[in-house]
């Protein structure tokens, strides 16, 4: 047993004549948040699909939780969960039913209790018995993530988890991801937002044109560049800070009333 949760070696994958992955190798350590950074079409989703047993590479090897992805996909599936790029909740079912269904499909005892616990943890209890179709985008994404937490998988794949979310919901997702990592879960996420990788990741790999062009901690990546120049600038609040400040004030004003 190594301390690597995910290992890939020289993964290659082409669709028709387009080579999407030309040679992808990296290691993800247990319990770390690993961000795969890249622009659209860089091959992030392809990589995640290969690791989540949905896609076979043309060549190369990979293992997750010590199991060979090609040879024992079932063992891999037992130890992972995937939150895809598009929110995969069943909109005709309630939030509670969605979680209940996943718990039963993972053959866990007490699916009702598991659903209840996760709903509480994610602040979805009030909406638990409404059809997920009526949820806001942020709530759907939270439910989607909650479905990935059922059964406490040791490796969680998140494919662009905050795409399409408002800043508030995005921060909540970030908090969830950090909590997961604190609890020992390995989190593999893809993102095209640099600040997301910067805020969350222990290690960052940059995927560009089918190859890993950098793979290091943020501090190491920063060292690759010339030492920071000290400049004095007036600190202006970012639009995001203003937005969050105003909306929170509004929310607390409502609560007081």
């Amino acid at each position, binding site marked *: 047993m190594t301390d690597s949760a995910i290992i890939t070696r020289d993964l290659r994958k082409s669709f028709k004549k387009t080579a999407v992955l030309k040679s992808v190798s990296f290691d993800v350590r247990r319990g770390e948040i690993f961000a795969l950074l890249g622009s659209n079409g860089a091959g992030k989703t392809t990589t995640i*699909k290969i690791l*989540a*047993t*949905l*896609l*076979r590479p043309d060549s190369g090897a990979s293992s997750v939780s010590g199991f060979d992805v090609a040879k024992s996909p*079932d063992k891999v*599936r*037992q130890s*992972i*969960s*995937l939150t*895809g*790029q*598009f*929110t*995969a*909740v*069943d*909109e*005709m*079912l309630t939030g509670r*039913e969605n979680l209940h*269904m*996943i718990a*039963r*499909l*993972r*053959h866990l005892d007490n699916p009702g209790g598991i659903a209840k616990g996760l709903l509480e943890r994610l602040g979805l209890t009030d909406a638990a018995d409404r*059809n997920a179709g009526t949820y806001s985008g942020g709530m759907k994404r939270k439910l989607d993530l909650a*479905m990935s937490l059922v059964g406490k998988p040791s490796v969680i*794949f998140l494919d662009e988890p905050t795409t399409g979310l408002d800043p508030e919901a995005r921060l909540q997702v970030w908090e969830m991801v950090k909590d997961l990592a604190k609890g020992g879960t390995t989190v593999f996420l893809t993102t095209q937002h640099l600040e997301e990788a910067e805020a969350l990741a222990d290690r960052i790999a940059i995927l560009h044109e089918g190859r890993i062009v950098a793979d290091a901690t943020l501090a190491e990546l920063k060292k690759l560049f010339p030492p920071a120049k000290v400049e004095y600038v007036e600190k202006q609040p970012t639009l995001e800070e203003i937005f969050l400040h105003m909306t929170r004030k509004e929310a607390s004003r409502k609560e007081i009333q």
Partner: protein
Amino acid sequence: MEARYLLSDMSVMLGRSMRHIFRSMDTIIKVALMPILFMLLFVYVFGGAIQSGTGNYVNYLLPGILLIAIASGIAYTAYRLFLDVQKGIFERFHSMPITHSAVLWGHVLTSLVSNAISLVVIVLVAFLMGFRSPAGILSWLAVIGILALFTLALTWIAAIAGLSAKTIDGASAFSFPLLFLPFISSAFVPTGTMPPAVRVFAENQPVTSIVDAIRALLSNQPVGNDIWIAIAWCVGIIVVAYVFAMRAYRRRVLSR
């Protein structure tokens, strides 16, 4: 993939899509409504002019109406499968340790149950319109068996369409030709009056043997070979469609 979980996975999947159906009752009503309208139209508008050679025209046309209901009902299977693929729900299921065939079988069983509900509604309406049958319990069981086989056969065809369609319209468009098969059969008029080419087609396509078998069973007439031809058609279609549906499934879910 552990076989001991197949049944439990399947029942979860069945429960899931049955909820879909009961939460959108309009689909069941839509499925039952069109055949009922056809039945009213054929009995009260065309019926007087049609020489079916039997006294009770409702008895004569009910089998064909039931097949039309099934042919339109299975379009919803294609629709639901298409949505599951598109919304990434299949991807989620596939990255989980569950029996993969359970995912498809859940949809297929749902199709059986929801079509059965529609058919019961239609038979009740037919009863109000004067449908009567002297058939005993064994004949009714045989009728139910044939209808179930026909539903399975068309559902697996629907699965191919739902899994390989590129658009939501494409996913349900395939059912139109199926819907017309009963019209070019012995379902509404005897085939004897049709021009030779049409007649040859009508007498040798699956719907005619299925309709004739059900009609004979419901009226306590000798069934003859029709029932075996009907069963052979259904089983043949099931086997072929199943193979292609599983292939479409693997292509769609596992290698996009």
